[in-house]
């Protein structure tokens, strides 16, 4: 049973004033933090007003970004964000589910803890170091083997047209996949471990193999947790800034080819910040507001799906 405020409030004593003071101080701080954030949202909207009034709804549907004519719209960046996040999720989530299955169902007991710790360490590596690694280590691998091979096999699809530079949406997507793995794997693992053993035992006692019991009993039971984990990974991928800024090539264009450079909402802000002013600055803030709304919706949705499982997210996130 948790203690409630009712304890000790029945009779008046000298202590009750101090009790109230302490309670309302901590409550005031909690309220201040919430109010601060919502107040800042209002402030951001205010800063973005010039851009909102100038471009209206077209801001989200038009693809012009021209500082010479002072015209700024966000579609190329929304497109780039969706495209890279899709690649990140497409590569990262299946690997994460495999990791979660191994850690919760298959691994010998002594290796689970250290292995989970190593996977979570991936979340501790700062984003900017992922970017550095991608430029110097991942890029030669991409241009040397991966991208030519993809072009040979899948070059006829619009997804892999063009030349191989290694600084493109594919590189950004691969880095995002690595960066969301610790989050998605930890939360999925936690939701699989929450499956009651009776489910596994029931399947095994019917003669199922480990694979069959995992698929039938564990995965179907933990489905909503895994889905929530993937949504959480999506939130990470959408808001990730540094590693993407360093790998995506920063070109304000809409192109379906993963081998072309692009730009995400986060990277366009990071790239143009120092030199932006006036209407451009206001447009960048508006992109930030759009990003805020997207991230808020995704994270609220994930929190509603996961509930207390959210505590399994590695806190060591390395600076997005």
């Amino acid at each position, binding site marked *: 049973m948790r203690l409630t405020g009712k304890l000790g409030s029945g009779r008046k004593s000298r202590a009750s004033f101090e009790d109230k003071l302490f309670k309302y101080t*901590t409550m005031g701080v909690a309220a201040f*933090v919430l109010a601060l954030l919502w107040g800042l949202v209002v402030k951001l909207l205010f800063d973005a007003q010039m851009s909102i009034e100038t471009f209206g709804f077209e801001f989200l549907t038009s693809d012009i970004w021209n500082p010479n004519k002072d015209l700024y719209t966000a579609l190329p960046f929304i497109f780039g964000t969706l495209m890279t996040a899709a690649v990140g999720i497409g590569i990262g989530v299946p690997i994460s589910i495999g990791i979660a299955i191994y850690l919760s169902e298959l691994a010998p007991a002594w290796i689970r803890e250290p292995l989970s710790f190593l996977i979570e360490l991936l979340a501790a590596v700062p984003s900017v170091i992922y970017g*550095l690694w991608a430029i110097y280590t991942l890029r030669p691998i991409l241009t040397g083997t991966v991208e030519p091979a993809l072009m040979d096999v899948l070059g006829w699809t619009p997804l892999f047209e063009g030349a191989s530079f290694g600084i493109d949406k594919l590189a950004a997507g691969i880095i995002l996949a690595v960066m969301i793995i610790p989050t998605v794997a930890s939360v999925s693992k936690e939701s699989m471990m929450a499956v009651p053993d009776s489910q596994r035992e029931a399947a095994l006692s019917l003669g199922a193999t480990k694979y069959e019991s995992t698929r039938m009993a564990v995965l179907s039971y933990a489905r909503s947790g895994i889905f929530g984990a993937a949504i959480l990974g999506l939130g990470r991928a959408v808001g990730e800034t540094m590693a993407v800024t360093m790998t995506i090539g920063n070109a304000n264009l809409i192109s379906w080819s993963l081998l072309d450079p692009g730009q995400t909402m986060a990277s366009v802000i990071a790239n143009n910040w120092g030199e932006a002013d006036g209407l451009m600055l206001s447009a960048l803030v508006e992109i930030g507001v759009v990003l805020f709304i997207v991230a808020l919706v995704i*994270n609220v949705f994930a929190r509603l799906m996961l509930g207390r499982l959210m505590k399994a997210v590695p806190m060591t996130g390395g600076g997005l």
Partner: protein
Amino acid sequence: MKSHNARKWRNRIASLLALGCVLVALVPLVSILIEVVSRGAPAIDWAFLTERTKSAGTPDSGIGNAILGSILLVGWGSLIGLPLGILTGVYVSEYGDNSFGRTARFFNDVLANFPSIVIGLFAYSLIVTVVGFSLISGAFALGIIMIPIVANTTEEALRMVPNSLREASLALGVPRWKTVLKVIISNGRSGLVTGALLAIARVAGETAPLILTSFGNSFWETGLTEPVAALPLVIFRNAMSPYADLQEQAWGAALILITMVLSLNVIVRLITRKRFKVAKAVKKTWKERLSLSG
């Protein structure tokens, strides 16, 4: 129904695939560590750690000012983030069994996973527009990022303090606030420490909010309202430089940053493991004492 053999093989292949996923995920981690150490170690010498950053080609260029700047940013950020985070966590754990407490907890969870560049925009909008690119605006952004991490770990740590301790203290006539401060917080102390360390490890590597707020500086600058250098900014700006000596500087800075962040994580790990052992030991001694007195 498939044959028994086919099912056995399928089982084996699936197990290997799952193990393969783990190995695939560990490849980048190992590769990053190897690359950062092998490329960063040659860059590090005394001048590198103590001199300020100079333009490409200048001898005796270093990242001393960036190390100092990072310490200042994280230090000031902690001054903002730790008290707010701890008090929020105390409220949610000790008084938060109501709708406001649940709202606060909900948004802490949401905020803990929020894109840091948006937090940087907040700090820009609130502080940079008034005083310009500055140490204080960067520290404010880092402080805000710390709040949900610290609040969540504080709440978890205080929840692990057994209710019998709360009841014992209240039964002795100790007022509630003193119970929280003296009994509950001191029992959950190691949890608070791990939360603070995790938050510090997290914000030490933050780059995106700093681009928008503290901006970077190649001089020894410590003023609260002046732009200030930071390790992640050095890595970001130098990584894309065409000059070999600047690139080497980026790797050296990366080695220092990653050593700091990973050792903080390992320390947290050791504390957490020890805490479980201590908790068990405490239970045992209490049982022994009870049986002695009984």
